[in-house]
């Protein structure tokens, strides 16, 4: 097993095999479904807000696909818990990538940010705010 294999095993496989925040939320305040057409990754995200209508009280996801897409979404659910929707809707993807911590090629980057992109779409839809430039096409093409 080479160094990269080791990192993959230690960082990604833990979240892939024991995903945090796996499940759905009935009557979620925000939800969206995202797909990566290149490899068929799918992620659905559900968010419940706190009483202030902005704090992320609970976030769950379901989906299937490669280990990177599923593990990154699992990490994301831990990362955004308790933060505000406003803040997360413009979260810098580098924060998530730092958490993933293994070098990713541009194609795998799409797998890694699928959950984050889907979450942002869910939050913008719930808030009625326009999707940022980079996400506009994503919503039209891939999301229900």
């Amino acid at each position, binding site marked *: 097993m*080479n160094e990269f294999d080791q990192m993959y095993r230690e960082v990604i496989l833990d979240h892939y095999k024991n995903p945090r925040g796996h499940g759905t939320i009935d009557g979620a305040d925000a939800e969206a479904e995202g797909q990566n057409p290149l*490899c068929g990754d799918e992620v659905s995200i559900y968010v419940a807000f706190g009483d202030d209508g902005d704090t992320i009280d609970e976030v769950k996801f379901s989906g299937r*696909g490669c280990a990177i897409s599923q593990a990154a979404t699992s990490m994301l659910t831990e990362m955004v818990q308790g933060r505000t929707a406003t803040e997360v809707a413009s979260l810098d993807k580098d924060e998530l990538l730092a958490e993933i911590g293994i070098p990713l090629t541009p194609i795998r980057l799409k*797998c890694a940010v699928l959950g984050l992109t889907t979450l942002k779409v869910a939050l913008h839809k719930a808030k009625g705010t326009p999707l940022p430039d980079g996400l506009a096409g994503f919503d039209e093409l891939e999301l229900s």
Partner: protein
Amino acid sequence: MAVQASSAKLDARALRSDFPIFEQLIHGKPLAYLDSANSSQKPRQVLDAMTTYYETSYANVHRAVYVLGERATAGLEGAREKVRGFLNAPSADEVIFVRNATEGLNLVAYSWGGSNLGRGDAVVVTELDHHSNFVPWQYIARRRGAEFRVLPLDEDAEVDYSGLDEIARDCNVKVVAANLVSNSLGTIADLGPLVRWAHEQGAIFVCDAAQAAPHVQLDVQALGVDFLAISGHKMCGPSGIGALWGRGELLRSMEPFLLGGHMISSVSIEKTTWGEIPHKFEAGTSPIVEAVGLGAAVDYLQRVGLDAIEAHEHELAAYALGRLAEVPGITLYGPPAERRAGVVSFNLDGIHPHDVAQLLDGHGVAIRAGHHCCQPLMRRLGVTATNRASFYLYTVPEEIDQLVDGLHAVREVFA
């Protein structure tokens, strides 16, 4: 030069020295390039032919009256003649240079389909077809109000022809389109019966030979098809060039596809008339040097010998199917080795192909992971993606060993 007489069994190890790409290590390991069905590597002979042409003969073609223009034109038309020979086409003016097989198939769909399809007509394709011979027909049929019928695959992933009679009863079949070799499963089709059926219906037969051209001897007259498209990049040629062959009488009767310079006979404000074939279908400045590169690739393949290449690939496919079967939790897709080109699709239980391919890269092994532009096929197999290892004339068994070792390592990561 390592190329050899065409009757000999090929020596992949010797041929490998023609390919500069192998003169490097990837992640400190020798490169096991098992993605030739995605795109093949290029021999020095092709690269040199293109460089020499740029350095000694380059000018625009068909219009410059000076000596370079003549040389340039001779280079392009020489390449056309080489492709004619490669396809055993009756005449070089039936060979149209296009960007790739996809553009060739779109040309037929738009130009022939756009004028000849209508309500009550049908286009028939198969579930094994690449999106390039599927999507253009689906689109043009819808635009023209024609039916789009897809021959399904059976449990063994073989095309099921049992629905043909029903299709013939229901509609007026105008186009049948199918590949000769599947890029996903490597299946070498016996197109004869389907071509005969198409012609009994009065339909044209459009053959996607992009994955066949690198591996099997093509002969458009023996195949009996009406159109056939190939891509240079899959057969040791450069990217950006392919060829469409069509029957002369069909090509002459068709409307042009792209319009502009070079494809005309005369232009006035009132009226434009089209040039002769192939020029009618080659608007604008051609990919001249790429065509020369394709001609050099044809020379290279013919010197190695297509029969020797096909035999080498059957051998590698058999070896790979045997070695891969040793890997626990593997599912192999597609036909037995004797009916497949050097393409093996597989999945590891519980491990997504993207993870497999990424981890294999760290072991110096390059394979494709994804849907291979065959989403209907993936759906039929019940998967979203597969891993695909594909071989070519420069592939040696050690690369397959490296793949198998890599797969054991991948399983360890996921254990």
